C-alpha cells in the first residue's frame, strides 16, 4: 500500500465560474492515499464473479465521505512524491458547497448511433474524453451497456488518427495497458465487470488534450405483443453489496471514489447538487422491414421523422441530454404477430441463424390452472419514492385480478425479509383487503438482502394443486448477481419467476436473468409507465397456459450449437429467440413440440432457403455472444475452469468482449512528457428517481 502524499496541481480554470475554485494546500486537507490503479500491480484485481473472501486490501488513511476533496489515485505505487506540480502530480480540488455546482470531469460527451434492421441493432458508442487539469490524468469510467451486447470493435481516436484496439485475454490486456501507462504512452483499456457493466480506462491524457473511444456492438431486440423494444442504458445504479461480498460494484461519493478496498469496481457518484458538462446525443435509424404503426419513447423527449418509406430516424431532443436514465424506444409493427421468423447468414466460418419463435395460437384458447402467486417487493432504500409507489400500484392491480381459487403471498425484503402471513392464503375479498392494507404500510429503507427475499419466496412447501408464480419487483441494485442467480437455480423447483424491473435505470442483466433462470418472463415499469398497464399485461399473459417441455425437430436440417441450450417456456404474446449454427440449406419444416398443461401441442415453421451471405453479417457475433452468455450462466452457478476457458476461446475467436477478454489500444508512436498521471474516476449522477441519501450516503 502506497502512502505517498499527493501534492497539489492547478487545474485549468473553468471558463466561467472560476471564482468557486479553492485551492487547498497540503496539510490543510486530508489526502487520499491509494494503491495503484485498478488494473495495474498494486491495485486489487478480482476474477469476475469471484466469491466472498477472495480478496482483501485494507485502505490506508482515507478521508471521510463528506470531505470535499476528490480525485485521486497515483498509478505508480512506488513513485516518489512529485512536488513540482508538473505533469504526473496528483490533484486536489476543493469546492465550496453550492447548488448546481459544475464539476469538470474527463468525460465530456457520449454519442450513440444505432441502426436497427429486422430484430438486430448495430450500435456505435463514442465517448469523448478530455483533460481539464494541468497535470496528466488517467480517466476511469464505469458505464453500462446492454447485457446481451456483442462488443466487437474498439477504436481510440486521437485527433485525425484512429487506432484499432485488439482483443486479448483480459490479464494480458491489463498488463499491456499498465506497462504502456507506466511508460507514458497514451493507451486505453475496456474491461467487463458484469455482462452489463464495463470499465473504460484511458491513460496519459495530457493537459488540454482530447481523445475519443468508439465501441461497436450488436444485439437482438426484445419483442412482446407486437412491440419491439430498443434500450440504451446510460448510468449505473448504486448497488448494494451484502456483507462479505467482495466482488462488488459499489457506489461511492465522488470524493472517495478511488478508494477500492475489497471493491474492485467503484461507481463514483455526483452529489445531488452537482452536475457535469457530460451530456449525451443519440440517434436511431430504424428499418423494421415491415410497417411501423406506432413509435413511443416514454423515457426521453425525442424527435422523429420518416427518412424514407419504411425508414425512421429518431434523435434525442437537445433539451433532454442528461445521461441519468435508460433510453427506451418501443415500436409496434404491423402484420401477423404470431408468425415465427428465421434469419440466416453464411460466411467462411459456416452458417449461423437466429430463430424468433412465437407461441402457437392454441395457447390463447386454453384456460389456466389455479395459481399460487407470490409477490416479492424490494423495500430497500434505493426503492424509496416513485419506484416503491409504482411497485405498490402494480401489486395492488395484480392482487385485484386474482381468482377466488388462487392463493397468494406477499413478501417484503430489505435488511431482512418478512411476509404478509405464514403461508399463502386464498384470494378471498377479505384476504385481498388485508393484504392491500399491509402493502400500503410498507416503507423503503435499509439494504438489499435479496438472497433472503429469494429464499423466503421459494423455500416454503409447494401447493401442487397450483402453479407457483413468483413476481419479483425490484430495481436490481445489487452487486452479488451471481449469488442471487445461483440461489434461484438451487431453489426454483416447479416455481416460475416473473421479474419486474422498477425504475429508470434498472439492473437489466439481473432482472432478465432472474426470469431466465426462473423460467418465467420479464417486465419493466419505468417512472413514466402505467403500473396498471404493465400488471394487466402480465396478468393477461398468465391467464393462458405456457408451452412447456419444448423440443425442436429440425427435420433434416443440420443444426448444432443452439443457444440458449435450455429452451425456455413459451408464454402468450412473447417469443423466444434461439441462435445456432447450421450446414446445408435450411429449406425444411421445423417442428416444435411441447405441452400446454397436460395437452400436447405441436407447431411447424417453414424455414426458407438460405439468404444471401451479406444479409445478416451480425449473426455470427450474436451467436457467439449468446454462447458466451450461456457459458457464463453455467459458470455463475458452478464455477469451473473449463467453462472459463471455453468463454475465453469463443470470445477471442470472434473478437468479443467477455469477462475473460478485453480490448486494449496503445499509441506507441509517441511517449507523453512526464510520469503517469493522476487517476480520475468519472463521476455520474444517481439515476433519475433514485435518492442519493438512501443509496450512496450523505452528500
Amino acid at each position, binding site marked *: 500500500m502506497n502512502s505517498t502524499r499527493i501534492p497539489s496541481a492547478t487545474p485549468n480554470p473553468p471558463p466561467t465560474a472560476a471564482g468557486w475554485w479553492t485551492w487547498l494546500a497540503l496539510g490543510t486537507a486530508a489526502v487520499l492515499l491509494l494503491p495503484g490503479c485498478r488494473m495495474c500491480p498494486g491495485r486489487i484485481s478480482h476474477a469476475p464473479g469471484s466469491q466472498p473472501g477472495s480478496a482483501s486490501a485494507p485502505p490506508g488513511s482515507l478521508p471521510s465521505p463528506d470531505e470535499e476533496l476528490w480525485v485521486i489515485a497515483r498509478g505508480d505505487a512506488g513513485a516518489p512524491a512529485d512536488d513540482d506540480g508538473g505533469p504526473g502530480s496528483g490533484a486536489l480540488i476543493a469546492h465550496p458547497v453550492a447548488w448546481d455546482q459544475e464539476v469538470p470531469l474527463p468525460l465530456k460527451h457520449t454519442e450513440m448511433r444505432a441502426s436497427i434492421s429486422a430484430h438486430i441493432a448495430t450500435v456505435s458508442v463514442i465517448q469523448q474524453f478530455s483533460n481539464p487539469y494541468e497535470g496528466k490524468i488517467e480517466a476511469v469510467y464505469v458505464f453500462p451497456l446492454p447485457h446481451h451486447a456483442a462488443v466487437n470493435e474498439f477504436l481510440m481516436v486521437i485527433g485525425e488518427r*484512429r487506432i*484499432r484496439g485488439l482483443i486479448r485475454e483480459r490479464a494480458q490486456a491489463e498488463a499491456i495497458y499498465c506497462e504502456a501507462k507506466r511508460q507514458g504512452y497514451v493507451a486505453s483499456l475496456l474491461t467487463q465487470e458484469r455482462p452489463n457493466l464495463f470499465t473504460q480506462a484511458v491513460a496519459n491524457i495530457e493537459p488540454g488534450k482530447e481523445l475519443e473511444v468508439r465501441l461497436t456492438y450488436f444485439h437482438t431486440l426484445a419483442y412482446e405483443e407486437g412491440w419491439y423494444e430498443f434500450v440504451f442504458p446510460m448510468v449505473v445504479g448504486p448497488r448494494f453489496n451484502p456483507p462479505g461480498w467482495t466482488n462488488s460494484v459499489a457506489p461511492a461519493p465522488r470524493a472517495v471514489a478511488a478508494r477500492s478496498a475489497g471493491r474492485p469496481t467503484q461507481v463514483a457518484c455526483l452529489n445531488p447538487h452537482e452536475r457535469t458538462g457530460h451530456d449525451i446525443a443519440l440517434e436511431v435509424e430504424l428499418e423494421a422491414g415491415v410497417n411501423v404503426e406506432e413509435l413511443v419513447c416514454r423515457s426521453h423527449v425525442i424527435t422523429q421523422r420518416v427518412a424514407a418509406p419504411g425508414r425512421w430516424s429518431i434523435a434525442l431532443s437537445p433539451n433532454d441530454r442528461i445521461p441519468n436514465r435508460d433510453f427506451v424506444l418501443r415500436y409496434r409493427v404491423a402484420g401477423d404477430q404470431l408468425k415465427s421468423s428465421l434469419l440466416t447468414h453464411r460466411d467462411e466460418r459456416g452458417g449461423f441463424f437466429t430463430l424468433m419463435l412465437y407461441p402457437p395460437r392454441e395457447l390463447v384458447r386454453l384456460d389456466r390452472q389455479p395459481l399460487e402467486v407470490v409477490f416479492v417487493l424490494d423495500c430497500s432504500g434505493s426503492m424509496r419514492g416513485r419506484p416503491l409507489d409504482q411497485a405498490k400500484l402494480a401489486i395492488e392491480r395484480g392482487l385485484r385480478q386474482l381468482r377466488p381459487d388462487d392463493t397468494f403471498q406477499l413478501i417484503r425484503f430489505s435488511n431482512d425479509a418478512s411476509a404478509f402471513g405464514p403461508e399463502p392464503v386464498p384470494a378471498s375479498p377479505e384476504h385481498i383487503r388485508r393484504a392491500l392494507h399491509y402493502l400500503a404500510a410498507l416503507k423503503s429503507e435499509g439494504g438489499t438482502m435479496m438472497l433472503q427475499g429469494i429464499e423466503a419466496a421459494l423455500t416454503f412447501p409447494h401447493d401442487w394443486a397450483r402453479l407457483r408464480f413468483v413476481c419479483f419487483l425490484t430495481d436490481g441494485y445489487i452487486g452479488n448477481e451471481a449469488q442471487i442467480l445461483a440461489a434461484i437455480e438451487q431453489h426454483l423447483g416447479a416455481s416460475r419467476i416473473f421479474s419486474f424491473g422498477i425504475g429508470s435505470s434498472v439492473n437489466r442483466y439481473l432482472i432478465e436473468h432472474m426470469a431466465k433462470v426462473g423460467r418465467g418472463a420479464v417486465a419493466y415499469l419505468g417512472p413514466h409507465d402505467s403500473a396498471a398497464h404493465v400488471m394487466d399485461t402480465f396478468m393477461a399473459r398468465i391467464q393462458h397456459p405456457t408451452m412447456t417441455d419444448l423440443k425442436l425437430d429440425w427435420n433434416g436440417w443440420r443444426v448444432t450449437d443452439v443457444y440458449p441450450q435450455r429452451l425456455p417456456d413459451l408464454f402468450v404474446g412473447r417469443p423466444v429467440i434461439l441462435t445456432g449454427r447450421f450446414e446445408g440449406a435450411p429449406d425444411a419444416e421445423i417442428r416444435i413440440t411441447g405441452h400446454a398443461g397436460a395437452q400436447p401441442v405441436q407447431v411447424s415453421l417453414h424455414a426458407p432457403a438460405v439468404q444471401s451471405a451479406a444479409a445478416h453479417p451480425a449473426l455470427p457475433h450474436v451467436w457467439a455472444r449468446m454462447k458466451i452468455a450461456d457459458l457464463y450462466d453455467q459458470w455463475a452457478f458452478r464455477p469451473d475452469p473449463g467453462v472459463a476457458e471455453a468463454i475465453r476461446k469463443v470470445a477471442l475467436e*470472434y473478437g468479443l468482449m467477455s469477462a475473460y477478454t478485453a480490448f486494449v489500444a496503445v499509441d*506507441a*508512436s*509517441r*511517449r507523453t512528457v512526464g510520469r503517469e498521471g493522476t487517476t480520475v474516476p468519472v463521476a455520474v449522477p444517481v439515476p433519475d428517481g433514485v435518492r442519493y441519501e438512501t443509496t450512496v450516503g450523505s452528500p
Partner: protein
Amino acid sequence: MKARLAYAAVLMSGALLLAQETDRPESAPAFRSMDLYFDVAGQALAAYQVEVVATRGRVRFVGIEGGEPPAFRSPPFYDPKALRGKRLILAAYHLETTPPTGRVRVATLHVQIASGEPAQFAVNVHTAANAAGRRIPATAALVERNTE
C-alpha cells in the same frame, strides 16, 4: 526511467529486425510503431489483405492505426482468430475515394516487444486489388517509426 531502444532495422524481403539496446531495465518491454507500406507501382490500390508475423522475439500487437491516404485512413480490420496464433492478418478496402498509387502507407502497427531478444517480422501479401476488383501485383514492407 526513460527507456530507449535503438533498432537495427533490416528491411529485406519483407522482413524487419528490431534489436534492443542494453540500457533498458531487463524486465521492461518496449513499445514501438511500424509503418506498413504497400507498393503497387503504377497501379491504384483499392483493397488488400496482408499477414504480419513476428518470426523472432516476444511480440504483442497492441494497436492498428489507419494509413496516410484518405482511402486507408480508417484502420484495417484484423482476423481475431489469427491473432490467437500470434499472426496479424489485416484487410482493408474502400469504395468511395480515389485509390492511391505507388508506395502507400496503408497502416501503422503498434507493438510491445519483450526485452531480451530482438524482434523480427515477416510480411506476406495475401492479395491486393484495384477498384475493379482485379488482383494487382504488390509488395509490402514494415518500416519502424522513430518514436523517441
